[in-house]
């Protein structure tokens, strides 16, 4: 379970996140939707301890990652930008990351073999990652997030850079993971992804969480046919009233 409690983050006078409060239940897919710079990535970075909250707290299975580093076993993270160690091969990278996450060698080898085949990376696992395309890096990062079979997944723009085949594969995989009772917090500005797989979406704008709802409810409430139109309606409405 993921809990965000009255979370705020300030950079000097700029308030990037303002009293955001929500939780993601076990087995749920929760999608943060927002424009560029809305504060989605900041919330995620605080949750996994890349940033420190100005106030409030972010917990995974009741634990703060800042207070207990070993609790980082509880999540797998896929970042928005695929920054990797360019001089390591995909196999070396996953071996090192897996063993740092406490995965046994035998299981790790099986995982790498299986997933590199599934994601069609098996021919490139011994090449340095600096030579990978963005999509290949995204696949490696997805494997890295899953390597220790964590109960929670934090995915920042998981389908960016993937071709339509793998984008669809990724969406199906995320749905399957939620059926296995894994908690999934996603951020995206591709509304069709959220519409297809999210149980609930939270719309965030200028650091404020405007609404939380299921995609269908949101479309009904705004009278729109697609989540994209509903999203734009909510944001425009808020800005008009501001």
């Amino acid at each position, binding site marked *: 379970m993921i809990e965000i409690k009255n979370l705020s983050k300030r950079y000097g006078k700029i308030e990037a996140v303002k009293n955001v409060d929500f939780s993601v239940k076990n087995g749920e897919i929760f999608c943060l939707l927002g424009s560029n710079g809305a504060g989605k990535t900041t919330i995620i970075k605080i949750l*996994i301890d890349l940033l420190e909250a100005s106030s409030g707290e972010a917990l995974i299975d009741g634990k703060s990652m800042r207070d207990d580093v070993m609790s980082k076993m509880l999540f797998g993270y896929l970042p928005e930008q695929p920054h990797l160690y360019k*001089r390591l091969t995909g196999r070396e990278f996953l071996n090192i*990351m897996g063993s*740092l996450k406490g995965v046994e060698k035998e299981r790790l080898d099986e995982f790498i073999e299986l997933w590199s085949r599934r994601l069609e990376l098996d021919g490139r696992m011994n090449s*340095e990652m600096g030579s990978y395309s963005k999509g290949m890096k995204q696949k490696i990062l997805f494997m890295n997030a899953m390597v220790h079979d964590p109960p929670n997944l934090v995915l920042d723009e998981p389908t960016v850079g993937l071709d339509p085949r793998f984008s669809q594969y990724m969406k199906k995989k995320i749905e399957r993971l939620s059926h296995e009772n894994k908690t999934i917090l996603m951020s995206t500005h591709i509304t069709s992804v959220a519409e297809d797989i999210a149980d609930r979406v939270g719309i965030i704008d200028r650091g404020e969480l405007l609404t939380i709802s299921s995609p269908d409810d949101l479309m009904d409430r705004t009278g729109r046919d697609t989540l994209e139109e509903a999203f734009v309606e909510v944001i425009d409405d808020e800005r008009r009233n501001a």
Partner: protein
Amino acid sequence: MMKEGTLELFSTEIKHSYRGFKERVVERPFMTFWFIILLVGGFWMVLMMVELIQGIDELPFTPSQGNILFVVFFVIMSKASVETVENTMRNHQLKHYFSTPISFQKVQISRFLKVFWYNLLLIALSLSIVCIHIYSFGFQPPIDDYFFYNLYILGISAPIIGFNLGVMTQVKKNIVKMGLLILYGQNITLVWLVLHSNISSTVIPYYLLAISLLSFVVLLTSKKLFWMGWKNGTSSSSSQNLRFHGSGDILPGFLDTLTRRVAEKEILIRWRRRESPASLGVTALIGGGLLFTYIQLGPDPDLGLGLDEFFYPVLIGMGLFLAVTLQVLFPTLSLFGREGKAFWLIRSLPVKPKNVIRGKVLAILLFSPFIPLMVALPVPILLSYSFEKILFLFISSLLLIILLGGIGAWASSKYPNFDESVNGAPDVTTMYTTMMVGMFFSGIFVLIPASIFILNRWYGLLALTSMLAITTVIFYILCGRAATLYHEREMDF
């Protein structure tokens, strides 16, 4: 049109650098002030040394005008070459320039101008400090009126030659690279020959000017080399032909798994970036320099310095400090900066900060045994020093490694530079300040036991071993502090 494009790129680079510099000065005013004091003091020391050794005839080199100019030329050229490799040839961000309709040459010239501009600033600043010292303290360096003409011209030719050499080092095929470096490297020999020839002082500037022009022509005609070198410098390859590969079982199993894995990751990356082989090479060069001095001067050099039998211990001490600075201090300074934007990877792992620091420092310290082997031991063995003396030098080298390693680890967490345009290298104020702090403390920790050693060898060794124990405690404290700073660091980029 060409001029406009080049100047636009150049001004962008300068603006970017200036903002970074300004930010550092505002963030760390004390550090900046301290840096200026150390810089001024450093030049004073150099002038003192020049004055001191002017009267010594036995040295294989003397501080003549030609030698001083050549040293200045060599330092600026080396600096320009390293900057070119690190900040240009391995700079992935140049792809943004290459993806615009600007020609390779404009990019090349703008990068050169950046290197050139900084070196001109450095010369101006250095000359100002030297002039103030000469007038304030009455130093009399062996220079005449033509010194400044030559210096100005060398100030132009050194960055050009350094830039061209930096580009050539990144050529993919080793045979072509070696050929180019050997051929073009003759420019350095030419400068040396001109500065040490019997040609009249009035004519030397014209020869130097000719060398500068020749090098500039090479710069203008090497745009394809620049493009190929950049592609090679920023590309990654299959690891099949690299020495370390596989799952990374490089280190012995008695270390804890997490520390071992972090260290293995570091070793692999540092080796593939050729940082470890390069620093080992520099250590071998320092050791070779000490051996050369021994061969030149013999076992009992009478240099009139008043050092007598302490000449070699002092020289070895200086060599050790330099080797430890280059092989341990500077690499540890970039422990975190080198991670760049991939810093999130290590921060999102369930690994305690102390394991991260231990693993990263261990990866650098693993190569440090070469320092006593190459620098501290060969000359004393040739001089048939007693066992106690050799042991003293050996323990001193361990002390320096631990002390500078600790200082570097702390500073890397306190002042990381995540700027990918310089590959995360620490900024010059951090490098210089930590070096001077390291020199101060290593002086205290080694010189006190050394004084006792002169009176009684065994008490001296006991004192040094005690200092080593104290240094080890300091190392643990500094690493612990580094771990806390790492844990508290925000990744707001």
